């Protein structure tokens, strides 16, 4: 009788443990496969060339170059730019939600952002390609540029930022707002000087996580950034990000070219991984889901 019970639990434990280690196995497998496939390029050029050289020309017979600096820099610049644009707008949006809107409107404004958050990146890209790029093109040709990419990404990340900052702000005590109103502290001051410092940590988490999402974004960027590998002279120059390069070249790449592509994928992944791990390292215990 007790044996059956124990036996059932044992089997169940084994099965769920296998399930739990699946994630670890996948991560290791991804690393192994990427590392294995980048090995030819890494051994030929060395990691140094990838992260110091800015020329990317792996198919050149005599002088192949595999510098990823331009692409990495563009990835970082447009991502940080997008978050830097989206965050203040998102914060003021939330200020409106928390301070000025009646309940039904706050509900509606939140729901709208949730819906918008579900819009696929390909749709943002399509909109950018058809509407935004021609618009920029009128003033500063060619239109498909760093600016367009940054704007599209900002728009894409806006709901993500609003939702995560909203979650962080909602965890602080807005019921004290009335009490502090009685003390002569305006609700605006309460929002800026009491609520936001309280929610600081959750907000940083939200921002960094949306930053990792934005760096990884591919399709929207491919469609609006112009796809020229260079360090841009101005925001109106076309650029190409790491992810865009992967999507554009992997289809036909062979041999060392292909291997070089896997290397930059690996570099990208390690970069994002470091960001996530750093964030987690600084996380107080209560944020780790324990």
């Amino acid at each position, binding site marked *: *009788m*007790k044996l059956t*019970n124990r036996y059932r639990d044992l089997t169940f434990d084994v099965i769920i443990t296998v399930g739990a280690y699946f994630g670890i196995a996948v991560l290791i497998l991804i690393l192994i496969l990427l590392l294995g496939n980048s090995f030819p390029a890494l051994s030929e050029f060395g990691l140094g060339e990838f992260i110091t050289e800015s020329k990317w020309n792996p198919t050149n017979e005599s002088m192949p170059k595999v510098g990823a600096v331009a692409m990495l820099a563009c990835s970082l610049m447009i991502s940080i730019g997008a978050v830097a644009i989206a965050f203040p707008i998102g914060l003021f949006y939330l200020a409106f939600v928390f301070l000025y809107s009646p309940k039904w409107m706050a509900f509606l404004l939140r729901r709208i952002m949730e819906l918008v958050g579900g819009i696929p990146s390909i749709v943002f890209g399509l909109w950018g390609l058809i509407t935004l790029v021609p618009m920029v093109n009128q003033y500063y040709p060619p239109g498909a540029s760093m600016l367009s990419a940054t704007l599209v990404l900002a728009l894409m990340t806006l709901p993500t930022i609003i939702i995560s900052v909203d979650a962080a702000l909602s965890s602080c005590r807005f019921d004290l707002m009335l009490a502090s109103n009685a003390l002569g502290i305006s609700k605006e001051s309460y929002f800026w000087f009491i609520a936001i410092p309280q929610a600081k940590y959750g907000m940083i988490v939200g921002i960094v996580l949306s930053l990792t999402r934005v760096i990884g974004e591919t399709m929207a960027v491919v469609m609006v950034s112009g796809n020229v590998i260079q360090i841009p002279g101005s925001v109106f120059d076309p650029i190409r990000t790491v992810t865009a390069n992967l999507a554009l070249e992997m289809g036909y790449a062979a041999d060392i070219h292909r291997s070089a592509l896997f290397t930059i994928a690996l570099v990208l992944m390690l970069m994002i991984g470091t960001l996530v791990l750093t964030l987690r390292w600084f996380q107080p215990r209560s944020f780790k889901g324990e």
Partner: protein
Amino acid sequence: MTTSPNIFEINNFSASYRDAEALNDVSLNIPRRGIMSIIGPSGCGKSTLLNSLNRITDLTPDFSHRGDVHFDGQNIYQRDFDVVNLRKNVGLIFQKPNPFPFSVYKNLSLPLKEHGMRNRKEIESTVNESMKIVGLLDEVSNIRRRNATELSGGQQQRLCIARTLTLKPKVLLCDEPCSALDPVSGKKIEDLLVRLGKEISVVVVTHNLAQAKRISDCVAFFCMVEGVGKLIEKGDTQKIFNAAQHHMTREYVDGSFG
């Protein structure tokens, strides 16, 4: 197996959470029959003791203990001890009634099936028997449909007792079983415990001294000494309430502190 008159023998048992000691050096025997009350002010480790008898403390990551607890002659903290069997034999009732959110019948039959009863007739008769003991059989109709969370607080608590009774436990541990209930429902639980005490061992943690006096055969008094819960005195109910040895016990039962 030993034929000791005690179902539980607790020897020099200490328990702590992380670094804070909750119980210090408790030695206590719990007889096979009758009701033992555990009284004392809040935070003196009464619940900790109860929880460690069922080994539900396993769920608390920072919990550690010293000393040993024998159940039916076996050390429950030894390595290959069958915890599931212990829990089948030692029922635990919490302060807040907490039926599972499904039908009354399933509440009672789930643990039974869990512990290996397969025969439908047998399950049904066991369920009915437990329902009868706690007096719910006549009060609650349609037990297969009725959701247990729809019952009143007192009925829920009696259902919880019935749920452990289906497993035919040798000990019933109750952690302030009446304190979340109204006096009438509390009285019903009390009467039930008295009836059960004639057959099995019942341990009741209570803050209600009058209750302890009414129902228990013997009483153990716990108190904080220098920040750590200790067993101050144990003995027959009459003795503890009328002629306690220790001055702290006397003060507590007189109502002058705690």
